[in-house]
């Protein structure tokens, strides 16, 4: 695993802190529903309509950046309903 990503929880917490302190108030008024990639090293934010848009633009701006993805106005960048999970072993052919 790439060294900067050996502690994903720390990256996520750093990204959330940068977002909360520097961008949240403004973005939640004007950019609700958009995705934002927080560069946790440079403390910059890159917005996009989709997760791909935000991350690709952020990577283009800083190819060596380490990012944390947030969806403006949402608790998580993505929702996942685990109750639907089933074992692959039950796949009917």
């Amino acid at each position, binding site marked *: 695993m790439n060294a900067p990503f050996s502690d*994903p929880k720390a990256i996520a917490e750093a*990204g959330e802190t940068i977002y909360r302190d520097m961008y949240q108030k403004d973005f939640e008024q004007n950019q609700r529903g958009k995705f934002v990639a927080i560069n946790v090293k440079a403390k910059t934010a890159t917005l996009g309509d989709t*997760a*791909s848009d935000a991350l690709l633009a952020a990577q283009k701006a800083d190819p060596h950046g380490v*990012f*944390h993805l947030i969806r403006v106005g949402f608790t*998580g960048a993505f929702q*996942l309903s685990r109750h*639907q*999970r089933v074992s692959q072993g039950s796949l009917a052919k």
Partner: protein
Amino acid sequence: MSAKEVSLNNNGHPYIKIKVYGISDSFAQEFDALVDTGFTGFLHMPLTLALPLGLTLLSTANYSIGDGSTVSNLIAFGTIDYEGQKTFGPISLEQNPQCRDVLIGMEYIHQSKHMLVLCEAGAVMLDMEEMAQIAIKAREALEQSKAASSEKSPTISPNVENQNPN
């Protein structure tokens, strides 16, 4: 029209066969992926399955789970090859070793311009652009049919006085 096969498991959940890879398709591996309409992302898979795929880690993201909890996952960019159609997007990597499933989410459905059709007999993935063209043609045919029938049929006046000679 190109309809792609979708398998249903014993619980009726739709699965598709995909190949996933990172920096080169020489790393591609095939997976049975559950089409999970409750997942808003692109692709979700266990980190252990992703290691041989040549993915480049890029980001982290928090995920809101159905039980109200939140987890942090790694994100890498990669390509999904579904019956020859290649779609590039952010793949989330599940670190919980108990999670074994590969999930296709709504962002993949949107990005790849697919439409999932489920019915009692089974399921298929349809090309949304082809479906839109069919819908446009059907509407044009309907409008032409209406125009033709209104040319042939005289207009019936709803005025009762005109229908009553007395």
